């Protein structure tokens, strides 16, 4: 292989390699260890610090396309909330988030959801709340005007939990499972910003890894308390739940695949640069 060809490998070979390398751990798990990051720990600790009976808003603002990342995060957090005896008001500002939210609730609260004794007392599912950021704003101002009924058509005032939760003043934590707009920025702007700031409505965000770097401003300024960063964040959270509550650690193979994928891309970069430097040192001006 000549040096210039190292710098210009056809992309299809890279694609095939990536396909193979990511597939391996999914077919036979490697069980690589994982470290715990600060962002996920803060979400975990914040949730742990809430006393039983505190109100958590679980907002499912993602669609099927980012489901691989967001679903494990939201499911894990729901489990955690149930385990701690927190009161959960789940809803979705994305129409496509509504069925996913219901699925997550079924998985955590049992397949009979909503026909469970806790329903209406410690957990409520409002389903899709229309109006995007405007809907968010209305919901924070007065929950009942944003949507008159829950996902199953029961009117809100008849649910004991919704009697307690009237507006943003009653929220103890907003867990935002975000993948775009409306998402964490709208919650910051229209819910937190208008209702007393980060101390009154703390926000934890489960984000797709792509949007995390853009959230750092809000994280540093304290508007976002903690972040679950993509699939790895979900993995870390599951790991912590696993240690404390024996929650199944399902994301193992995915994280292994993740690691191998990263190493492969790093290898691509190194190989590309070796090829580039070799062609350049040969005198040919590299374009």
């Amino acid at each position, binding site marked *: 292989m000549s040096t210039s060809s190292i710098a210009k490998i056809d992309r299809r070979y890279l*694609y095939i390699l990536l396909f193979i390398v990511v597939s391996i751990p999914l077919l036979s798990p490697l069980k690589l260890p994982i470290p715990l990051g600060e962002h996920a720990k803060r979400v975990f600790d914040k949730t742990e610090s809430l006393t039983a009976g505190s109100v958590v808003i679980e907002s499912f603002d993602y669609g099927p396309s980012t489901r691989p990342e967001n679903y494990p995060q939201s499911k894990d957090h729901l489990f955690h909330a149930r385990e701690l005896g927190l009161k959960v008001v789940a809803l979705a500002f994305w129409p496509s988030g509504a069925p996913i939210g219901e699925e997550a609730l079924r998985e955590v609260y049992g397949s009979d959801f909503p026909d469970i004794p806790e329903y209406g007392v410690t957990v409520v599912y409002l389903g899709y709340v229309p109006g995007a950021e405007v809907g968010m704003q209305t919901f924070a101002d007065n929950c009942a005007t944003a949507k008159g009924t829950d996902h199953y058509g029961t009117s809100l005032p008849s649910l004991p939990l919704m009697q307690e939760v009237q507006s943003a003043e009653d929220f103890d934590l907003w867990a935002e499972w975000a993948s775009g707009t409306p998402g964490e920025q709208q919650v910051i702007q229209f819910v937190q910003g208008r209702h007393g700031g980060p101390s009154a409505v703390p926000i934890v965000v489960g984000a*797709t890894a*792509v949007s995390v*770097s853009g959230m750092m401003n809000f994280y540093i*300024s*304290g508007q976002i308390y903690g972040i679950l960063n993509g699939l790895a964040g979900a993995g870390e959270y599951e790991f912590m739940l696993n240690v404390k509550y024996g929650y199944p650690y399902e994301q193992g193979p995915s994280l292994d695949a993740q690691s191998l*994928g990263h190493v492969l891309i790093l290898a691509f970069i190194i190989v590309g640069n070796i090829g580039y430097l070799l062609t350049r040192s040969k005198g040919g001006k590299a374009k």
Partner: protein
Amino acid sequence: MIQDLFALIFGVTVTVFIYSFLWKENPLSRAVEHLFIGWAAVYTLASMYDAALTQGVWGAERIEGGNYIWIIPILISLMYFFFFTKKYFYLYRYPVSIVVGIMAGMMICGMIQSNFLVQIQSTARDLPLVGAGVWDWSGGSTGIIGLNSLIVIIGTITALTFFFFTWEHKGAFGVSTKIGRYFLMATFGAAYGSTVMARISLFIGRLRFLYETTYEEPTYLVNAWYIIPIAVICVIIMALWMRSKPEEKPPEPAPAPKPEKPKSKG
């Protein structure tokens, strides 16, 4: 139920067909693309129609509750249809101008509050330069708080100078813009590197669908991966067929005069 089996077969097939695009644009990916576009147009229509009904018709404060004022926006909406006329084409501007005005007002207020004020505020408030322990390695894993603050402040200001449009990037100001560009590059590198994970996650999600999904009936069981070979064979047949048929290729592109890379980012 049988439609779940259909969904499974459909899902696996389109997944493989779309991945065949990575090899090259081909009839199978093209077929999926055209089908998908047709559905998307209907989906968009459906979502806009639903939004209009929920916002304008249903509910106690809307038409349903006797508030007939909501007929006005519906009528205004109809002005969009002048798109199809030549003479009164410009009438589409009325609905657009209303929406753009509303959005401009909302955007201005939101921008100044969350993108401007809060950023200045948190730069000043949350980045301590003095006080007990800010210059210790007390942050442990993530560095010295005071130094970090200083870097963020310098980075923010220098990167902001990069966006000056009417000042020439020369002298001391030029140095500042240069440092600002380094900060911007670091920002982009970090954004890129941290995104890789998200993208691979999506791919892992697809692979887990291909490898792990099953359809179960009392009498038989269909694994999603049973269908993969069939779909792959389709792709191979198509590839052979494309090869046997010489395609009318557009003239070879002259090599693009690529600029020396990142200089062009200015």
